[in-house]
């Protein structure tokens, strides 16, 4: 009896559609957990990198030196990436135009592009997590409804409608809902947590971009005054 009503036994004995639903949900759960782990690692690494870079940036090092120390464009992350993009644009524009406004506009645009790339990178796959979180309960419910439909169909053929004839069907149908919830609950929790972390990081990047912009602006003002004078 226990054997017959155990979860694996019920899953194996379920009808085809319900089994497909269960498989889908299992896949969703698995992938959502992959995303959860991967994003968690990414976030942690980005947080650490950001702290490290800020320490270096505000340590009073020369910006040209810092620019030379950082690796090439494609391999930088987070605030470093924004700094490189902005500073490169600044260095390129500086010899070409004397208008500080034009230089600052170009630097700002370049930094916005870099920030947008960083946002895209941080939020990668979080949408998938949101999708799993919102849809898997419905998918599980669909499996349950389908299983119960099957049970009632078979019940109509049976002579006596007893609890014992209905119970296994309903149990195996309800497993689909259980699996849907099983996939959805962690997805919801981690989606909220990861997206809030990502937005906090992006806010920090934005703050850094503004600060860097103000430093460049200060430099240009000094140079402009010197040139005018």
């Amino acid at each position, binding site marked *: 009896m226990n054997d*017959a009503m155990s979860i694996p036994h019920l899953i194996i004995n379920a009808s085809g559609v319900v089994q497909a639903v269960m498989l889908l949900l299992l896949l969703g759960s698995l992938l959502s*957990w992959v995303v959860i*782990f991967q994003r968690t690692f990414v976030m942690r690494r980005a947080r650490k990198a950001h702290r490290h870079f800020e320490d270096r940036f505000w340590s009073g090092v020369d910006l040209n030196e810092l620019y030379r120390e950082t690796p090439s464009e494609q391999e930088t992350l987070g605030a470093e990436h924004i700094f490189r993009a902005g500073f490169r644009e600044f260095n390129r524009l500086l010899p070409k135009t004397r208008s500080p406004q034009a230089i600052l506009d170009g630097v700002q645009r370049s930094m916005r592009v870099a920030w947008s790339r960083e946002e895209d990178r941080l939020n990668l796959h979080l949408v998938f997590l949101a999708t799993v979180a919102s849809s898997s309960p419905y998918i599980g419910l669909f499996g349950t409804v389908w299983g119960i439909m099957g049970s009632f169909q078979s019940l109509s*053929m049976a002579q006596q409608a007893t609890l*014992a*004839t209905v119970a296994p069907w309903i149990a195996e149908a309800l497993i689909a809902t259980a699996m849907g919830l099983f996939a959805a609950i962690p997805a919801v929790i981690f989606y909220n947590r990861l997206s809030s972390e990502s937005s906090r990081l992006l806010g920090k990047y934005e703050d850094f971009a503004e600060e860097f912009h103000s430093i460049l602006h200060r430099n240009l003002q000094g140079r402009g005054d010197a040139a005018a004078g």
Partner: protein
Amino acid sequence: MARHQRRVGYGLPLLLAIALHLGILVVSVIRFPAAEEEPPNRAIVQATLVSTETATDRAQRAEEAKAAAQAAKQAEEEAAKQAEEAAAKQAEEAAEAEAREAARQAAEQAEEAAEAEAREAARQAAEQAEEAAEAEAREAARQAAEQAAEEAQRRAAEAEHQAKLREEREAERQRQAEEEARRQREAEAERQREAEEEARRQREAEAERQRQAEEKARRQREAEEQRRREAEAERQRQAEEEARRQREAEEQRRREAEAERQRQAEEEARRQREAEEQRRREEAARRAAEAAQQGLDQAIAGESESVANSAQAQEAANGFINLVRQAVEQAWAIPPNVTGNATAEIRVRLGPSGELFAASIGRSSGDSAFDRSALQAVRAAAPFAELRELPSSVQRQYREFNLRFQPGDIR
């Protein structure tokens, strides 16, 4: 700076996710059977065990048998008491008769002795008289002597005659006494024989009643397994029959009873043959037959004990059968669209430790899917490890039994 360059790959997260799911699966598999043990599923379908009866039936039967045994013992005691009484009375009477006889003999002897003495005295007197007469005659005249002698002789003869008469009368009386004693003894013997007859008849009637009670119980069991109504009719008919047979037995004497017993023995044999088909009944019949063959006294003495023992064993066996039935019921998944009155019989053979040796279809229901489901139920429910908990004496009986499957009504 080098640590900035490494992008986070998907290999480790994938590994971690799979490990997490496997862990959850293992935990669910391990824990669910334990959690599920609490609600025992009451199966609605009934798998009826053909070759056994229910516990209540069994208890009733045991009680009946016990009551019968008790009644028999009481009757026996009564009969014994009566016999004892009769014997005592007889002995008393015999002693009385003997004493009377002895007294009579003593009186006779005394009488005889007295007679002999009297005769002796008479003879002596006569002799003396003769001698005297002779002496006188010698001295006196001859006629006188002769006359005296004649006189003496006559008197002696008379005395002798009288003595003879008395003797005859005495003999007569003795003969009469003897006659009477013999008659009394005969009457005594007659009475004793009658008492014995009565006791035997009672004992026989008792045995008869007991055997009939047993028979009735067995027949009841059979009837219950079949239809209730049939059982009712059967029992009524049996009651009538029993009453008639009792009346007959009472009316007629020993030959009738013997014929009855023979007939019953035949019946018993027939039932034994029947019972060979089903092991348990055979067992019961064998015990009954043995009981019948043994002396009635032994049977009555041993009956209550054996009934108690067998009742106990049956109780345990019933527990086992119930367990088997429950296990099979729970393992049974009735296929859809089976008619309500489909009945399949599965013959089950178990190993000594309860493992399933063979399960075969004894009587098909005609629906092969139904038969298969029943077979599968038995196979799924095996092994029946509870067999080892049975008393070893009855284990062998339960190594083989039939299970009847039929989709039951809604309870």
